[in-house]
């Protein structure tokens, strides 16, 4: 077997040893196998630990990896002799468990030898007494017992490890309440000597404590044992150490004589209850009256009290005894609270809501802090707590939530009753609002807009709103941001451009951030308010003025306008054709009529065929004229016949009977104008035009009248023929039913007969009516007058002769002759314009 070693230095100046292993002559060798590695480093940090008094383990730092098979051997020796070697296992080259039981009080020298093919190194020697390296076993069977005499102590007992016989021990005792997370330690100086029991003092009554213990050599050399298993025990009960927090609430009651008072108190926390609270004893004392006792299991009591002042006391009771009594003065109804706390502040700190105040000048027994969640949706349901009269700041011991506004009220309680409450608001932790404000426009002007918004509801504020931010942007894209103080609910945006669409959005900010509200758009008007009015009103006024002037003008020139637009058409009913048409030539003229019209000048003529009376119109006409005269004088025999043939309304016959008053009114409303025919006359009677008005609702029989009219003019002198003419008209449009009209006609006749003066007056009135009606040309005006007079003249003359004085008759005659003359063809007549 041959072995070649070569050494060379690597870059890091460490010796790299290449070992070539060999070349054995027998057949089992692996020819050419080359192993490489490092020589062992000197083991460092050698240390030994004696577990109990039984075994010793030493450990060390084996140094770098050698990549070669390296043996670590722990060697130990006394001054006089050496112990057996302890070879570390391959997989755990850093420690070795010594086989022999170490001997205490004899110094031992220990070292480690590391050896591989490339060399052998020895660690530093350590010299120690194994007793100074002892790690005792942990104390066993730890138990806890309480004492009925003392509620603040617990006695611990345990069994020490066996090594205790050889070495003295000291201890660590840890304890904690059952729910606590951290341990407290009994002062080490109390446990510096070997013992097997310890009494822990100053514990809280009726509290479960957990203990653990460990030990080590008294002089501190060696190691602490592991902790023992925990043991727990409960201290004995004690009477409640404190009176419960005690407060009251006066419920509103309907009656004035009694008050419903709810006394309420808080359960004592376990560290004050010192046991299981069995019940509460409440007493109520009115001034100079008997004590009322209550035993309550609950934490409130509602009693009806008179309006007097009461003293209430409360004591909690457990198995051992009663607490001190909490005393509360319930003031009389008329008590006036005063002396509130000053400078009340509430602020969050360390995830708690702290309340701070300055105490009033008066001596305070205690403070009551009440708080409730402020919300728009739910009512205030207060929780409360009590603080000592010396306290100036505290935190709210309730289940407070973040982003909720709490209303906190502090009430000082004095000897004679509660003082005035003082309130403030606070958040445990603010957040950005959950909703932004909704902005809208209150008024939009040409260059400005008044924005308004509602305050955010408390539920969405999540904090104190510190300010608002208004973001607005025109459609052109000019964005502007304005900060507004939180006290405002409206803001005026100025310098806006007219006739522009604006987008506006608002954000509300708390200390923790903001939240945008919905966007709102508005358009500024093109004109400012009043601008349109300034334009429109004058324009309207101008139009109105113009209209007025126009109207005035029209009014002034109405005659002219009327002439052009609605010429005055004579009312046929007022014409006296009815009277004088009978004067027209009777039937025999028809032949001439045919001749007259043969030239075909009539263009628009309504022709009424006269059927039944065709054969003998003349005699009848003539007769009827006579009859008419007679009729007027005396009876109604003929007139009934005439009336019976009338097709008109009941008023119609009155025309025939010269009841002008009635006829004029009726015809005015019902008459239709017949076509005015004039051309026909040029042939025979140039420059004379006759306008006639039909009594009928049927078209007028101008074509037939014309010749008759001409005849009539001729026959006027004869002074008769009215009746036949009238009859003729009636027959033209006759309707068979005549009887009702007859009676009416007769009645009219009677009326006419009743007063001759009336009759004359009517005639005159009618004439004047005609004059007044005519607003057109003079000719138009005159014609009805003439015709009317003409129409009446024959009858009138007769009548006047008989019934009227001569003077009157003369006047009428004059009038007739005067008015009649122009119409005569011989004198030239009138030419219509």
């Amino acid at each position, binding site marked *: 077997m041959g072995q070649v070693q070569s050494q060379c230095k690597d870059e890091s100046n460490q010796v790299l040893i290449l070992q070539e292993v060999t070349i054995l002559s027998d057949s089992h060798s692996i020819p050419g196998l080359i192993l490489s590695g490092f020589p062992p480093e000197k083991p460092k940090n050698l240390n030994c630990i004696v577990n109990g008094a039984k075994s010793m383990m030493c450990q060390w730092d084996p140094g770098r990896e050698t990549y070669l098979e390296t043996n670590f051997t722990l060697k130990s020796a006394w001054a*006089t002799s050496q112990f057996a070697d302890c070879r570390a296992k391959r997989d755990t080259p850093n420690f070795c468990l010594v086989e022999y039981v170490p001997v205490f*009080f004899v110094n031992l020298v220990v070292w480690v030898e590391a050896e591989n093919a490339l060399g052998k190194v020895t660690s530093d020697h350590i010299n120690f007494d194994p007793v100074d390296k002892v790690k005792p076993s942990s104390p066993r069977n730890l138990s806890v017992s309480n004492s009925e005499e003392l509620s603040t102590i617990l006695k611990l007992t345990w069994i020490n490890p066996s090594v205790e016989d050889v070495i003295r021990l000291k201890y660590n005792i840890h304890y904690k309440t059952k729910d606590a997370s951290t341990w407290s330690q009994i002062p080490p100086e109390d446990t510096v000597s070997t013992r097997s029991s310890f009494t822990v003092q100053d514990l809280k009554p009726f509290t479960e404590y957990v203990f653990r213990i460990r030990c080590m050599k008294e002089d501190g050399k060696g190691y602490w044992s592991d902790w023992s298993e925990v043991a727990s025990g409960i201290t004995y009960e004690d009477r409640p150490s404190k009176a419960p927090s005690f407060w009251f609430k006066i419920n509103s009651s309907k009656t004035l004589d009694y008050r419903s008072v709810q006394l309420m108190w808080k359960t004592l926390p376990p560290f004050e209850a010192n046991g299981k609270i069995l019940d509460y004893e409440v007493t109520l004392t009115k001034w100079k009256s008997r004590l009322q006792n209550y035993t309550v299991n609950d934490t409130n009591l509602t009693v009806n009290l008179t309006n007097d002042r009461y003293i209430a006391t409360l004591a909690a009771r457990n198995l051992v005894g009663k607490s001190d009594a909490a005393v509360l003065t319930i003031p009389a109804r008329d008590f006036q609270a005063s002396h509130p706390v000053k400078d009340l502040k509430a602020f969050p700190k360390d995830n708690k809501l702290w309340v701070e105040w300055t105490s009033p000048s008066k001596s305070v027994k205690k403070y009551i802090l009440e708080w409730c969640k402020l919300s728009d949706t739910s009512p205030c349901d207060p929780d409360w707590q009590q603080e000592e009269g010396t306290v100036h700041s505290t935190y709210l011991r309730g289940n407070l939530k973040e982003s909720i506004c709490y209303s906190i009220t502090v009430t000082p309680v004095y000897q004679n009753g509660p003082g005035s409450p003082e309130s403030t608001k606070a958040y445990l932790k603010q957040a950005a609002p959950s909703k932004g404000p909704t902005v809208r426009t209150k008024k939009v002007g040409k260059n400005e807009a008044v924005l308004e918004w509602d305050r955010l509801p408390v539920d969405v504020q999540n904090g104190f709103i510190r300010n608002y931010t208004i973001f607005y942007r025109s459609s052109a894209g000019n964005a502007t941001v304005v900060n507004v103080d939180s006290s405002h609910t409206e803001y005026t945006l100025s310098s806006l451009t007219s006739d522009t669409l604006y987008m506006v959005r608002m954000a509300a900010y708390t200390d923790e951030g903001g939240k945008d509200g919905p966007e709102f758009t508005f358009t500024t008007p093109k004109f400012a308010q009043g601008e349109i009015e300034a334009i429109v009103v004058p324009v309207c006024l101008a139009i109105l003025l113009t209209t007025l002037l126009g109207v005035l003008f029209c009014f002034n020139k109405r005659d002219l306008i009327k002439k052009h637009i609605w010429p005055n058409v004579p009312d046929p009913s007022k014409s006296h054709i009815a009277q004088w048409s009978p004067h027209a030539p009777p039937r025999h003229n028809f032949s001439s009529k045919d001749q007259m019209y043969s030239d075909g000048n009539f263009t628009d003529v309504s022709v009424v065929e006269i059927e039944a009376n065709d054969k003998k119109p003349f005699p009848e006409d003539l007769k009827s004229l006579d009859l008419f005269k007679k009729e007027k004088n005396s009876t109604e025999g003929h007139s009934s016949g005439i009336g019976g043939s009338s097709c008109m309304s009941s008023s119609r016959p009155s025309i025939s009977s010269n009841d002008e008053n009635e006829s004029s009114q009726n015809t005015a409303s019902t008459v239709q104008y017949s076509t005015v025919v004039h051309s026909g006359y040029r042939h025979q009677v140039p420059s004379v035009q006759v306008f006639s008005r039909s009594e009928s609702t049927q078209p007028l029989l101008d074509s037939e009248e014309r010749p008759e009219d001409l005849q009539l003019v001729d026959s006027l002198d004869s002074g008769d023929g009215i009746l036949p003419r009238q009859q003729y008209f009636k027959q033209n449009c006759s309707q068979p039913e005549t009887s009702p009209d007859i009676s009416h006609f007769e009645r009219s006749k009677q009326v006419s007969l009743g007063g001759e003066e009336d009759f004359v007056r009517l005639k005159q009135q009618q004439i004047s009516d005609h004059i007044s009606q005519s607003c057109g040309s003079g000719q138009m005006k005159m014609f009805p007058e003439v015709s009317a007079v003409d129409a009446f003249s024959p009858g009138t003359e007769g009548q006047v002769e008989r019934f009227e004085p001569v003077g009157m008759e003369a006047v009428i005659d004059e009038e007739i002759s005067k008015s009649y003359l122009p119409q005569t063809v011989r004198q030239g007549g009138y030419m219509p314009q």
Partner: protein
Amino acid sequence: MDLRAGDSWGMLACLCTVLWHVPAVPALNRTGDPGPGPSIQKTYDLTRYLEHQLRSLAGTYLNYLGPPFNEPDFNPPRLGAETLPRATVNLEVWRSLNDKLRLTQNYEAYSHLLCYLRGLNRQAATAELRRSLAHFCTSLQGLLGSIAGVMAALGYPLPQPLPGTEPTWAPGPAHSDFLQKMDDFWLLKELQTWLWRSAKDFNRLKKKIQPPAAAVTLHLEAHGF
């Protein structure tokens, strides 16, 4: 170091050298070398430790021997144990012993007892007992080393074992099993007595060697200057 006569630098260097070596002077170096005190204390503690060990060992072994040896008030006559070193001694004699003699007697006694004990170990039947006995033997050997250390620290020579008197456990044919057990009983009893005595010896020695702190200081001053 190069010293030349008349060289002031040499004189200074010499003085420096002397001062340099002052801490090396044994008498002045008491604080660095604890002396025999701690080792006497340790020896004392060891005797107590061995006492404690022996109590349990003896109980186990006497039970192993069986009645009547394991009875508390069993007190047999000392018949075949004459060779065992006697721990009991007249109080006056014990008081008159000097440290050297006291330590020598202890050393010699434990040397013998250890040899007997090893014989006992070979006879032990159970592994547990053998292990306890082996540990006790080791501890006793440690005590011997401890005593030797103290003696060396105090400058006393170790007693040379007399040739031929090398104590060996050689059970004679005359010894019956009961007498053998009797010898074992006495061995353990004598061991116990010796440990009690040693505890007293070393306590006395400890008090003697470890004077009050003030005396140590004076001693230092006397030796130093």
